């Protein structure tokens, strides 16, 4: 694959906050049109990476190329390609939904005739009519997130960054948001998201990078990453509640091992990303 096939290229990306190294030489390539997930615990460097890649924060070392534009040389052109949905709701809460959309369209310098057309298109697409005159704080968490996404894609960016998009949402709102992300991706938008929910990475992402302590420690499709340990996992829990994990290439060898255990409980299941994360870092993703 040539560099043109990648919409995000980061090489040896370094970011420090005073003495603390937040990103320690990250190399990353995201293909056009894919959903790429950054999976890692809190404090791993996910948000810092998103802030840098989305042009919001400067970096101390390395190279970042967004849609063919080097951030150190041509940040304005890169900005045009990018939409960002931050972890927190970053809408102007003194303004209505419609005003937030219009303000964002103005800041992206969308010409007047196209501006109203695009806003009308998004209102229809997301069935937003009844909320247009509502202030942001009167919306539910799910709708606030939706409006954030709508504002972020108002200029039809080629990449959208979502930083922990479903934190604080209930299961229903989370699944609706997943659908929305898939829809955007289906339209050709590249999606870069961070998450610490294993099931989110597994359900949504074409490719996942596992980040810990400011470094990418694994990268691949969710199934490749999981299966790198072995397709099946045997969890043997002794009477004291202590669990031991063993990985096997097929169910037969996993069952054979399980049957050989005489003490405690045995669980045989498919290996998942959480297992991969634990093996790589020695801890669970939520801790």
């Amino acid at each position, binding site marked *: 694959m040539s560099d043109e096939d990648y919409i995000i290229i980061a090489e040896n990306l370094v970011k420090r906050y005073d003495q603390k190294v937040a990103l320690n030489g990250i190399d990353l390539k995201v293909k056009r049109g894919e959903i790429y997930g950054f999976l890692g615990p809190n404090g791993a460097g996910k948000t810092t990476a998103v802030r840098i890649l*989305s*042009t*919001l*924060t*400067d970096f101390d070392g390395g190279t970042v190329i967004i849609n063919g534009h080097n951030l150190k040389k041509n940040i*304005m*052109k890169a*900005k*045009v390609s*990018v939409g*960002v949905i*931050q972890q*927190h*709701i*970053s*809408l*102007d*809460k*003194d*303004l209505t939904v419609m*005003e*937030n959309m*219009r*303000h*964002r369209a*103005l*800041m*992206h*310098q969308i010409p007047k005739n196209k501006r109203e057309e695009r806003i009308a298109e998004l209102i229809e697409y997301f069935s937003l009519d009844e909320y247009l005159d509502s202030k942001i704080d009167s919306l539910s968490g799910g709708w606030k997130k939706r409006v954030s996404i709508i*504002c972020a894609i108002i200029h039809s960016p080629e990449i959208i960054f979502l930083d922990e998009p479903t934190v604080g949402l209930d299961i229903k709102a989370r699944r609706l948001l997943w659908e929305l992300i898939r829809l955007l991706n289906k339209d050709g938008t590249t999606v870069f998201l961070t998450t610490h929910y294993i099931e989110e990475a597994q359900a949504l992402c074409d490719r996942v990078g596992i980040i810990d302590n400011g470094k990418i420690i694994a990268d691949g499709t969710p199934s490749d990453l999981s299966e790198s340990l072995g397709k099946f996992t045997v969890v043997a829990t002794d009477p004291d509640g202590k669990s031991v994990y063993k990985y096997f290439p097929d169910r037969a060898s996993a069952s054979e091992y399980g049957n050989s255990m005489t003490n405690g409980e045995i669980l045989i299941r498919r290996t998942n990303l959480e297992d991969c994360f634990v093996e790589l870092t020695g801890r669970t993703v939520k801790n």
Partner: protein
Amino acid sequence: MAWGDLRFMRHNFVSIMAMTLVSPVLYLIAFGYGMGQGVEMDGVPYIAFIIPGIVALSSLNASFSSTATRLNVQRLYYRSFDEMMICPLRTSSIVIGKAILGFIRGLISCLLIFLLGLLLTDKLIFSLPFIACLMLSCLTFALLGEMAALLAKTHQSMAVFNTFVILPMTFLCGTFFSVSILPDIFQKLLYLIPLTHASECIRAGALGWNFPLLSFIVMIMFCLLFYAINYYLVKTKKV
């Protein structure tokens, strides 16, 4: 860039204006009428002396506080300032755009106070130097408010800036009395502060006195300095 801020002002126009006018009107009553009856300052009745001072003071308070408060909330509470930083906007557009709310609010409130002043004394004149100085003053203090909000790490640090920078400026910088009556050393210190120059320029413009060109130039320098600091903070993303 300023569209959102202007919509915010439109939504809250009456309350914003009412809040802006409370302090100046109280100053006018307390110092102008309560204490200033029969008093002269720099050769004019005290009420005529104090009205341009209160106008200068309002340009500071209204322009500074409306810019600083809104930007501080957008940065630290709504986090919507990040969204502006993501958009493909020139740094100069962001810096000027964020000062426009304060500039317009300051200008409107100062003009209202001046109109009130015209009813109270016939010594005031609405002149070109007056309006030029007023606009420069509102822009300078809006940029100062922007600087304070960009540098603030917490809501508390804005309160500290208000207490230790804005409040002393309010009372000391030639708004309620002529700086010339102070000892030399204090005069020199006060001329390091932009409101002293704003008061002198606005008062000269409003009373038709000789125009203090040096103070006007110093005001321009302060305005450029605050603009440059804000430009640096936004450009280097140190916000």
